[in-house]
């Protein structure tokens, strides 16, 4: 009987392993430093009741905070005010853009930064024109344009952020 059940148990086990590995730590498993800061934020009592995803998020934020210099922390506080004003869908778009950006190799990232810098130098009306043109592109043409940018071309053909297409 036991022999017949064993293969099933072994089949189930790999499915369970990721769930066990990703469980966010309980309060007692946190480092003293984490407990000190989260405790000050009145999270001690309800930590174990928070969903795993929320705990993971708070711990990730805390780990970033602990790595930051006082100056970086000051800037982050300032930027939070700007972040707060953005609508949820804009925040989501920026998170996705950052995710895509970080997946690029360093040389491509440098290229993106250069192009973004050039774009920011343009007069506001020109930027708006380009945004409008971008919105009119089909998704496949937007992808083609992104690819061209990453090959070193300009996102809009003919000249720097040119007049073309």
């Amino acid at each position, binding site marked *: 009987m036991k022999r017949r059940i064993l293969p099933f148990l072994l089949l189930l086990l790999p499915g369970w392993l990721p769930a066990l590995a990703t469980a966010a730590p309980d309060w007692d498993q946190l480092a003293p430093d984490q407990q000190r*800061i989260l405790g*000050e*934020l009145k*999270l001690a009592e309800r930590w174990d009741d928070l969903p795993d995803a929320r705990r993971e*998020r*708070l711990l*990730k*934020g*805390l780990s*970033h*905070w602990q*790595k*930051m210099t*006082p100056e*970086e*922390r000051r800037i*982050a*506080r300032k*930027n*939070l005010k*700007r*972040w*707060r*004003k*953005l*609508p949820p*869908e*804009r*925040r989501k778009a*920026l*998170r996705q*853009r*950052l*995710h895509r*950006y*970080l997946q690029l190799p*360093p040389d491509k*990232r440098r290229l993106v930064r250069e192009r*973004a810098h050039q*774009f*920011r130098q343009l007069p506001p009306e020109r*930027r708006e024109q380009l945004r409008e043109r971008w919105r009119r592109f089909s998704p496949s043409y937007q992808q083609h344009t992104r690819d061209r940018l990453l090959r070193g071309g300009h996102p809009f053909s003919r000249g720097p952020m040119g007049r073309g297409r």
Partner: protein
Amino acid sequence: MTRHLPLLLAALGAVTAQANSAPEDEPLPSVELLEYLADFGEDENGRLIDPLSQAETENDGPRSVSYREYLQRQTDQ
């Protein structure tokens, strides 16, 4: 005087210990700030990147309209 020396040293030690463990001047992060920092990315050199660095302009987001107007437009679309 010699009798008071251990007491003085003990007191001095306590003061020094207190000074060393004094809480940082810097205020603690809020829960909201931690959630915002969770959205930061990290490059291969361990450098943190703010998602706002991906915004086009300083005022990225609802430009030249109030947030309420912006939401209204979204609803109308």
